[in-house]
């Protein structure tokens, strides 16, 4: 067939608008930082903890911690990288606390019939829950990369800038992230208990 594809130069998928943001950040106010990042950070935290109220509390903690640490921040460090790092740590602390009181939304999985064939775990606990749980169990740096790519629609270059890593590293991060996500998701889908779950019930 007559395919005369026009070959086009490729840039990062979302263009270079991100560059303009870099400039803006240097003169941003606290309010501006909040307005700019509230949705991505809240969304990220929400899918880590799976609870609206708690996600708001943790979002508040994340921004306050960030504001407090700004004067000490290395000027070469990206604000977004810093925010995600603090958000990750804040959410992890909360998850750890939650484990101490032995509650995780998916713990009932163990009470499902032994015959996995007859009980579709996706129907039992929902795909969203499985996805969130697999995300939680992934190594944080890989998760952030995969999250920025899929939920925020960032290009490799933007992920590199956001996480403060080399662009060549993003390829590796995303590759490991997808392998890791697959491993955790498959295990959850099959109802195989994971180490994290044991802790959760202890």
């Amino acid at each position, binding site marked *: 067939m007559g395919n005369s*594809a026009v070959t086009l130069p490729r840039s990062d998928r979302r263009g270079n*608008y*991100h*560059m303009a943001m870099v400039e803006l950040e*240097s003169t941003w106010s606290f*309010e501006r930082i909040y307005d700019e990042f509230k949705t991505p950070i809240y969304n990220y935290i929400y899918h880590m903890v799976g609870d609206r109220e708690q996600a708001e509390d943790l979002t508040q903690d994340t921004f306050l911690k960030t504001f407090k640490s700004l004067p000490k921040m290395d000027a070469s460090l990206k604000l977004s990288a810093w925010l995600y790092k603090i958000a990750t740590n804040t959410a992890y602390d909360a998850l750890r606390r939650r484990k101490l009181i032995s509650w995780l939304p998916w713990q009932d999985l163990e009470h499902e019939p032994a015959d996995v064939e007859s009980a579709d775990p996706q129907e039992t606990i929902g795909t969203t829950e499985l996805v969130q749980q697999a995300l939680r169990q992934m190594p944080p740096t890989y998760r952030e990369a995969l999250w920025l*790519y899929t939920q925020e629609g960032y290009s490799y270059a933007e992920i590199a800038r956001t996480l403060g890593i080399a662009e060549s590293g993003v390829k590796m991060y995303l590759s490991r992230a*997808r392998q890791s996500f697959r491993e955790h998701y498959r295990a959850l889908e099959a109802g195989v208990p994971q180490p994290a779950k044991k802790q959760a019930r202890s």
Partner: protein
Amino acid sequence: MRWRPVSPSQRKSKPGRDDRLPGCGNKGGGALFARESDSEACATQKTMNCEWIEDHLSAYKDHELDAAANDQVATHLVGCVKCHASLDEYIRFDRLLTELPRMTPRPELRARIFSSPEFRAILSERNGHGVSKAPASHQLPSLRSPALVTRALIGVTVILLLLASAGVVLRSLAAHPTTTCPSPTTGEHVLTRSADGALVLGAQRFPCAQHTQATDLWQVSPNGQWIAYIAAHTGDIHTVRANGQGDHVFHAAGVSSTATIALVWSHKSQKLLAVTRDQADGAYSVTFWAADPAGAATASALTFMMATPDIIGPVWSPDDLAVAYAFTHTGIAPSANVLNYAAIPTSAIEASTPLPWSTASSGSWSFASTISAFSWTSGTQIALTAALATTTALTSLVTINPDPRAAPLTYTPRNGPITAAAFDATGNRWAVALSDGTLLTFNPLTQHTTSLAHLNAVSSLTWSPDGQHLIARSNATLWWLDNAPARRLAANAGPVAPAWQADSSTVAYVDGSQVMVATLTGEEHQVKTDATLVKGLIWSPGGQLIVWGINQAVVVDASGNTAQTISPSPTEAPQWTSVP
């Protein structure tokens, strides 16, 4: 009929083990129909280093490999079922992640943070004195860095796409919030446009008492919570919540003799694409305005030149990051068709100030053929129904990889031209009817076909939203097809398309002079008589059905009880809104 039901144990995959990967199966095509014929390509699995491929598969999926590595992976994938299945899984997982609901914090959180004692303490520490009251704006001079400024100076790359001369113009829209209105009650309401051009919600003119006249392009978002319309007297694009609040006006400054030709909400209802058309010097330009009414109500625009006034689409990609559209190109190469797609960056329109942006990812293909329909697959590929050999009969199904280096895949059924074809909601499966009576499904990602049935003279196919059931129209008969034996619904079906309820449990259709509903549980009953002049059937998510007729529009429930009558009947199909 050749139906081969799939038993639950056959359907169920066994996750967590590599050997669960489908041998040469109907990968990615769902579990509804069993496969009876597959391509022979799956017989060989190359023993080339799968481990190496595994490490590069992720970047391959994202089109981030160099040409050599890309070819190596592509070649390997043709023969390796296991790696192909891995790729499918990555596509599926990316989709699951992309489709997680996007959550936004409540507006109160902002006040909570900036009035908290902790924040006052931070301010006080920064200023070196007492606690500040109601801080307005706090500049952060400490973040300046020469390196950052240097990086900021890197220019914006603009990609243009077209066969001949092409130009890309970036324009921004100003947003002017207007007055707010009293809220309609919570729940589902019918939105129509009256003869004088006013939008009417339930029985009230909308929005509130404004004398807005809308053009016929008004559109409710998929979640029912936003309404977009064009003000007839100004040509401005408006977005307003279904409760009447938050009316934004998008004014296309400096655009002359512009006509808006399409308004398309993204799947998640967060973005609105408005396509405007302008003619100058015999060429047409199409401008895409991407707006985020829930955010800061800014918009970005992108203009393409083309030699024809008509476009097919645009269609949002499943991840809402790109749109694809096609147009017939009659000027330069005879009967060529071009399919373009462009990425609409989420962040650009969510930013609180307009930012320069470009089509970061864009592509263009030309075909000496007619494109009749297209859809995105769950991945990044675009599937087309096209007439390749003749402009009168549909002959082929084409799948395009947006990577310009990859050649499109073409499937041409041997048993004659296509009489009807329909994509399911994922875009990963066509139902295809051929002129010899063959009915099959086709997976554009794996290029596998599955025979379904033999049914003569099929003129239309309608998938249920969940992709588990299919209504086929054969002459005047409607058939319900799925794993169960085929079910005959109507013997005297009119031209009105059957309508599935959002949960796929019920389908409404016209049989003779009656409107009928058929349920998954096997029931069929009449919900309205006197249906000879019906123009359309429109379900609400909550299960109310609008029977839109020539003389009147009637809202009935699934039992046939009438809840509302709209008379005279609107010219355009009514749409459902939902006030949360």
